[in-house]
């Protein structure tokens, strides 16, 4: 995906929106990622100029937080919880099942662009482990059968 004029405009608008807000970088980066699906490096010089920050500071900020992606994701994002509670209920098997089924590792996207696989450390759904999140929907007591359905639906939805 190339960096379009449209993307630049969206970023400029967001930069303007948060210009006077204390602690602007956090809501700004969320805004950019919500709009574009990731935070492109092309945004850095624009932010740098408007907020009087060095490119290094912006890069340092973006790379510190797991939530911000620096490259486009697939159409759907499947997060697998790797934390202790889910481990106690077999999350590792779910994790392996997803990797095998999608034939990708964490942080990768399937070749058809349908699904990106990401680890996550706790979804607060520990009462019903193991848990996964597809886009913004959390699912509990997940079984391989459910993973099949999630993947099937995600492929249809791409």
């Amino acid at each position, binding site marked *: 995906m190339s960096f379009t004029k449209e993307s630049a405009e969206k970023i400029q608008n967001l930069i303007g929106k948060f210009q006077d807000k204390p602690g602007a970088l956090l809501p700004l980066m969320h805004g950019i990622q919500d709009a574009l699906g990731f935070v492109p490096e092309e945004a850095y010089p624009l932010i740098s100029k408007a907020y009087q920050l060095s490119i290094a500071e912006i890069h340092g900020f973006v790379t510190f937080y797991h939530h911000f992606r620096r490259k486009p994701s697939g159409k759907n994002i499947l997060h697998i919880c790797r934390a202790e509670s889910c481990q106690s209920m077999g999350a590792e098997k779910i994790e392996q099942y997803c990797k095998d089924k999608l034939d990708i590792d964490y942080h990768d996207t399937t070749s058809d662009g349908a699904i990106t696989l990401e680890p996550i450390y706790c979804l607060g759904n520990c*009462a*019903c482990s193991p848990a996964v999140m597809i886009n913004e929907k959390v699912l509990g007591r997940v079984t391989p059968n459910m993973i099949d359905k999630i993947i099937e639906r995600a492929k249809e939805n791409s």
Partner: protein
Amino acid sequence: MSYKIYIPTDSTSLSLGADEVFDAVQREAIQRNISLEIVRNGSRGLFWLEPLIEVETKLGRLAYGPVTVDDVKALFDAEFFAGKGHALCHGLTEEIEWLKKQERLTFARAGISDPLDLNDYLNLGGFRGLKNAINLKPNEIVKTVTDSGLRGRGGAAFPTGIKWQTVHDTPSQKKYIVCNADEGDSGTYSDRMIMENDPFVLIEGMVIAGLAVGANQGYIYLRSEYPDALKVLNKAIDLAKEKGYLGDKILGTDFNFELEVTRAAGAYICGEETSLLESLEGKRGMVRYKPPLPAIEGLYGKPTVVNNVITLASIPIILDKGSKYYADYGMGRSKGTLPIQLAGNLKKTGLIEKAFGITLRELIYDFGGGSATGRPIKAVQVGGPLGAFIPESQFDMPMDYETFAKVNAVVGHGGIVAFDDTVDMAKMARYSFEFCAIESCGKCTPCRIGSTRGMEVIDKIKAGVEVNKNEKLLRDLADTMVSGSLCAMGGMTPFPVISALNFFPNDFGLEKTDTKA
């Protein structure tokens, strides 16, 4: 006639299909021409019974659960909506032992009504604490909190009243109330439950905190993994503003308080208060040196109260019923109640609010019903990824900050994760280091480098390479991290590691020794 039923919107209930059940119930009701009023309530936290449908009857609310879409037709056949019997019916919700045995103070309202219905909130005792606080001098509010014995529920257990007093006593034009809603510990979800199921109580607690210390701006730093909580909080803030509980001239007084939610971005370390403040300021979440304490130089260098969600949500009832009422619960220096979260490999998971002093065994077996897999429970981890693993021999310990501290364990945020006997404790210890390596902010060396070296040393021990030498090295490394790290991330990662090593040496391929950490 019309029947009233309740189907929860809590995100764990939704994760088990509550929305799909709601759709199916609606469809079925239309098809059968039955008039139903369906309230989307929060969850009471009986997650082993979720999705839990409640039916209003003359005697009280009846519980049906766990309900799947496939059960809906049979429930209608049995006329559940009229309170009639069915295999999934558990009788009156409030008579279910699991719930009845609890002492719900902070969670008094959770799950009873629509979390965003302000009238329900008022009818169930909401904003009484704030109304009392308005008639008190700031110092008197702080004193009430101090006298209640409330300690920070995020895990550090620092006395809340003392923190507030410091902010109160530090002169400044600008002060802040920051709510730490970066609930990153595995096995914990009580913050999420408050925010999704009773958001106004958190808002009320924050306004009271503002009144007490003289702060006019509040932030809720919310983890990005909680999209549902974000939506609920934002709506609740708008509603509270509309009705004069936030914004200018709150309840006709001269007091103004603005509140907003800031979405975090998936860094565990930002649950550490100084790292959180850096993040809120739009920087990398690097831990700050202390002193200065955030209470003196916090957000943008101004005096700042940083409290966990549960701490702030416990304030309204203290101001409503008085410090003594709250302090009468609990044991020793652990006053009041703790919302305990049962998680992991247990049959009956969910939220249990109890006075301090209940033992782990009661929680794991009486409430939890033993393991979900039916196998013996080998260990539990209490207090998140930085909490010690606790073996069966310590299950009779009461939940109490000091009792736990004596054995190098922590109560933390009250999350309990159970593991059955298939768990490999050496693997769990390695994971503790791995997690620390992934989440370390990198500012101090023991945490940044120690975590990776720790993984390597465990790998060597497991591979049988110079086992005794490496065990000594591992304990030495743990010592360095405990004493030399800047914050709890590096300073407490050794707790789960060393407890695993001490109690389960066989999993490391070691003989049992008497060595203590």
